[in-house]
């Protein structure tokens, strides 16, 4: 019934989804190609409306692509209906069957696959144990809390042992504390089951914490794929740097390049070394944007940027300083708070900013 694949990597090839037609046509997914490796926690990250859900629904089979292919373990599954794909979904709203008990919800997929009663019972109790819901097995979904419903939805999707688990913002309805707990839980479940997780979120923090790899989406396209560190430290696009973490954007001119890094001159006149994304060719003399993360800059006696401290905001673990640069731009700087640090300059004081070696990054506009 389901294709017999041993590898569970997903290959998405030039996939597009257009809603509507004529003047109303809207490209929700725009020529996406991406490889999602086996046994990975892979996150689709992007702002609301960028096409994450649509991409996930294409993988699940709820939507048919306008063009392109989806392969699972090397096998083309583009034309298969959802009930023939070894892929299960955890819905944002959980979508638990209200007329069935927790145990019957978890066993639903197994029943549909025609497994024996004993086998189903065994797997259901195993799954309920996995998400720590054994004691509520006979309850109805309406009789358990949102966090518990979330666990049941997970167990239900995991029970048939899918090759791939799709999760569409599964934690967004939970309160902050529960969300943190469930994040750990998800990470553990992925490691324990070895199932490829494709996780959708618009929460960059969540993406950084959980993922093996992140694909950053914008306007139906994937802008960059990489590890959390790779994406955070070396954003290739201005949008990526802006969306993930806080960023300072500095205008600069390329002085010299050597493949993966460039010497750039800032408006202050100082020259610094900045990493160059492999996808970006910056000619000498061209103007570029350089990203510097606030925590990668420090106050110094002799810096590369000059400005005036406007205000300091105390956050407990760190302090954020807003500095007005000589060219009028605002620069954010973050300092870890430790005991015995030198006191901060008073607002209005003239300061110099140093940028850590290797911390500057050229990005595409």
């Amino acid at each position, binding site marked *: 019934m389901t294709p017999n694949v041993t590898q569970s990597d997903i290959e998405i090839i030039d996939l597009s989804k257009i809603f509507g037609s004529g003047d109303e046509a809207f490209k929700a997914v725009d020529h996406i190609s991406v490889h999602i490796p086996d046994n990975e926690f892979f996150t689709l990250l992007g702002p609301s409306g960028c096409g994450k859900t649509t991409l996930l629904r294409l993988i699940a089979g709820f939507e048919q692509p306008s063009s392109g292919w989806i392969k699972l373990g090397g096998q083309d599954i583009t034309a298969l209906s959802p009930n023939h794909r070894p892929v299960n979904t955890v*819905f944002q709203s959980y*979508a638990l069957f209200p007329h069935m008990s927790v145990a019957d919800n978890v066993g639903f997929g197994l029943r549909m696959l025609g497994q024996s009663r004993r086998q189903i019972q065994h797997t259901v109790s195993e799954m309920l144990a996995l998400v720590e819901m054994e004691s509520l097995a006979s309850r109805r979904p309406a009789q358990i809390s949102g966090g518990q419903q979330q666990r049941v939805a997970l167990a239900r999707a995991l029970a048939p042992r899918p090759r791939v688990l799709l999760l569409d913002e599964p934690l967004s309805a939970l309160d902050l504390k529960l969300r943190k707990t469930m994040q750990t839980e998800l990470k553990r479940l992925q490691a324990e089951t070895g199932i490829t997780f494709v996780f959708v979120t618009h929460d960059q923090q969540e993406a950084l914490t959980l993922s093996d790899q992140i694909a950053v989406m914008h306007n139906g396209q994937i802008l960059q794929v990489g590890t959390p560190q790779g994406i955070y430290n070396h954003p290739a696009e201005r949008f990526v740097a802006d969306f993930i973490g806080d960023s300072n954007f500095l205008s600069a001119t390329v002085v010299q390049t050597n493949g993966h890094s460039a010497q750039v001159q800032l408006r202050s006149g100082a020259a610094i070394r900045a990493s160059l994304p492999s996808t970006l060719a910056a000619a000498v003399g061209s103007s570029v944007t350089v990203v510097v993360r606030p925590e990668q800059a420090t106050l110094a006696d002799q810096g590369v940027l000059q400005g005036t401290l406007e205000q300091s905001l105390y956050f407990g673990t760190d302090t954020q300083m807003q500095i007005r640069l000589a060219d009028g731009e605002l620069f954010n700087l973050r300092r870890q708070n430790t005991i015995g640090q030198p006191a901060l300059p008073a607002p209005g004081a003239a300061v110099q900013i140093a940028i850590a070696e290797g911390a500057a990054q050229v990005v595409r506009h």
Partner: protein
Amino acid sequence: MRALNHWATLSRWVLCTPALLILLLAASGPLLIVLVYSFLSPGAYGGVVWQFSTEGWFRVFFSRDIFDGSVAPAQAHLQIFWRSVRLALLTTFFAALLGFPTAWFIATRPAGTRELWLFLVTIPFWTNLVIRTFAIQEVIRNQGLINSALLNSGLINQPIQMLYTDFAILVGMTYVFLPLMVLPLYASMEKLDGRLLEAAYDLYASRARVLWHVIVPLVKPGFIAGSILVFIPAIGAYVTPRILGGGRNLMLGNLIELQFGQGRNWPLGAALALTLLVIVLVALLIYIRLVMRDPERDHG
């Protein structure tokens, strides 16, 4: 606090008084009269004579030979009871069978056009029941639409006798009561969360099994409401069986009407009416017991 509650309760009762009065006068009053009449004696020209008698009730179930006074079960009555129950059940069944896809069709139209479809479903209500029933008669009688078409096409040589059969009554009642099934079914389908269907489809259910394991159980309240709304008027129907059954295939409604009219036996008519009420109540009780059983309990 207590005083406030007291006031709230009191004002609630006061506000309910008109409704309660209407219920008392319009529902319980006539019922009481029927109950009393069923224990009186028939007048020679209709009406009742104020003299206690159980003859009305006796005649519901037994007939007395007019010559030798011997008693036998009232075969004709029992047959009519059975026909009424059977036809009402079949009507409910076919209304559900036709109503389900109809309601599903309407519920899956884009928002904004559903109202139009619902409106179309209610259009038959604008025409008098008698006229609609005669229209059906035109369609199914021996020289009617269906038979002429079949005869002309050479598929049959003899017209098929459809009018004045139980089949005709069934067709007529299903047609008349279908909207009463469609509307509550639609109401529960409209509330159905489409993501539940996707979830089932995602969990390896075929379309047929999504229908059986998710849609049907979730629209059960609509089924229950629709079945009750169809069954009750169907078992007591008398216009449709009279026109389409041709006075040969009586149903309970016709039998009751007969006692108050030509039969001039009001106590028997009253007793029959109460029997109908009991049948409906018993049927409802059985039905509710059946549908309230948990369907997800007994599958493996």
